[in-house]
């Protein structure tokens, strides 16, 4: 699937296109399919997202998994500071993104 990610303009937080808006959680990401470029242009112009781009991902039983390690780390947080990730309670989470 093709999903969209960027950062929130004001807070800088990593966000993912969920079909209606921007979510903090990669598992909410929706398949943007053919519309990727149009959504990017529209959302960036409206300043609802900063520096958006489209990436490949797959939906697994555990959620949405971006194809590249860089975006998987973006989706979780720094692997060296599990306490600062989006899943501080899940010790496996870091291993799963690598």
């Amino acid at each position: 699937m093709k999903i969209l990610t960027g950062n929130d303009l004001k807070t800088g937080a990593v966000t993912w296109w969920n079909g209606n808006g921007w979510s903090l959680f990669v598992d909410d990401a929706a398949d943007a399919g053919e519309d990727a470029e149009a959504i990017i242009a529209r959302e960036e112009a409206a300043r609802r997202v900063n520096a958006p781009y489209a990436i490949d991902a797959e939906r697994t039983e555990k959620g949405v998994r971006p194809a590249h390690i860089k975006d998987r780390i973006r989706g979780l947080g720094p692997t060296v500071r599990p306490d600062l990730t989006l899943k501080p309670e899940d010790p496996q989470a870091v291993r799963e993104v690598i």
Partner: protein
Amino acid sequence: MYQYDQYDQAMVDARVEEFRDQCQRRIEGKLTEDQFKPLRLMNGLYLQLHAYMLRVAIPYGTLSGRQMRALAGIADKFDRKYGHFTTRQNIQYNWIKLEDAGDILADLAKVEMHAIQTSGNCIRNISSDHFAGAAADEVADPRPYAELLRQWSSFHPEFSYLPRKFKFAVIASETDRAAMRLHDIGIQILKNDAGELGAAFYVGGGMGRTPMIAPCIRQFVPLDQLITYSEACLRVYNRYGRRDNKYKARIKILVHELGAEEYTRQVEAEFAHLLEQGIEPPLAELARIRTYFEDPAFDVGAADEIDRSDPDFAVWVDRNTHPHKQAGYVSAVISLKPVGGIPGDATADQMRLMAELAEDYSFDECRVIHTQNIVLPHVRKADLFAVWQKLEAAGLGTPNLDQVGDIIACPGLDYCSLANARSIPVAQRISERFAANGKGDTLGELKLKISGCINACGHHHAGHIGILGVDKKGVENYQLLLGGSEAEDTSLGKITGPGFSEEGIVDAVETAADVYLAQRQDGERFLDTYRRIGMEPFKEALYG
């Protein structure tokens, strides 16, 4: 240390308001990201992997206790209670909101700090020797010259849109502790045969994709021509540096493509022209700046002995202190490299402790080292034990300066949007390995440097052992380099061969260390042995 007068303060205050306005225009949509990006970068604000990142300038690495406290305050108030000290003697915060940026700069301005010159294609924060003003081997304190260059290069109207970023380092001793020849311009303050102070200019060094060691293009520039000569170097670069390819835009490529001789000829011609323009500051300004860097009131009767009865303390003294020009004193290095820790990270509480130690024991001064550690430059030997005890209690007493555990690591793929691989976990695993097997204590000086991409923020080219993280079809892979040095014997490391996995690179470093341990002769450091025996024995052991 230097203190702002009303003019310096007014400039920084104006910059805060300018950037507040620019941020507001971006949030309101009057500026596109393309237009805003160079403006925010010139205020140290990056968009990184997880959020905005703010890099704060620490000119020539020097901080007062009050400034260090303010850095801790920013970590608490606007970030996640920590900061990361960088290989350019700066600090960066990883979790910054754009809407807070103006307020953070305002807090910094209250303690004479800012984020100017920490990014963008301008002249960057000037770096220097972290033992400046304390080391016994310097001909002068290099920082007044760095400060003069700081002022000249701040808001420079001609050089704010250079082909690429531009880094100066200034040293003033034959021992190079600032990787001077790996900068765009390296300046060595020295004395000529007549005993006058002047500056040798080394131009066109750098790491990154195409590492180069800067050639000396002028042996002696008189102090009353320092700025004019710098301006000539920059103007030739601004006009003729390549702009067609980001990776060939640094001055080292220009100097390399023209040849040092032709580049020098052009600089000298521009210099002759600029001398007629009268752009040099009055020497009285240098004299004014120097007054801020005079020796503190040392206790001339301070005892020159250290009580070494505590063996752990004695190890720390041997490894983490540096000789001082004043009898009875040393410079003490605070390691930000605990075993298994994140190189260069310090919590807000640790920053406050370092501020307190600077105030109580080091004439209210501390320094950031490009190796991502902190120096207390002027500590009485009699106070060392008390300092060490407080450091130990805060996890800051690791005795590993320039040892295998004192690893430089860039933020890598855990934080940086340019990175191809993670650096920090590799550093953590290596320091843990050498602590667990006990070999760390037998290796002596071994400078290990890790970069998570070819841009080389982790100085891998200049490590006795260097590691470069690469992206191999979406999997992290690590190349091993041997034989680099950032010191006065500058050399660039060579790649051993095929890269290694994350686990494999830790084994590979241990293998290289074992070759050294087996082959070393009396007093040789890892680097000396490598230079004597060459790459082959290492390759043999690594790839057999």
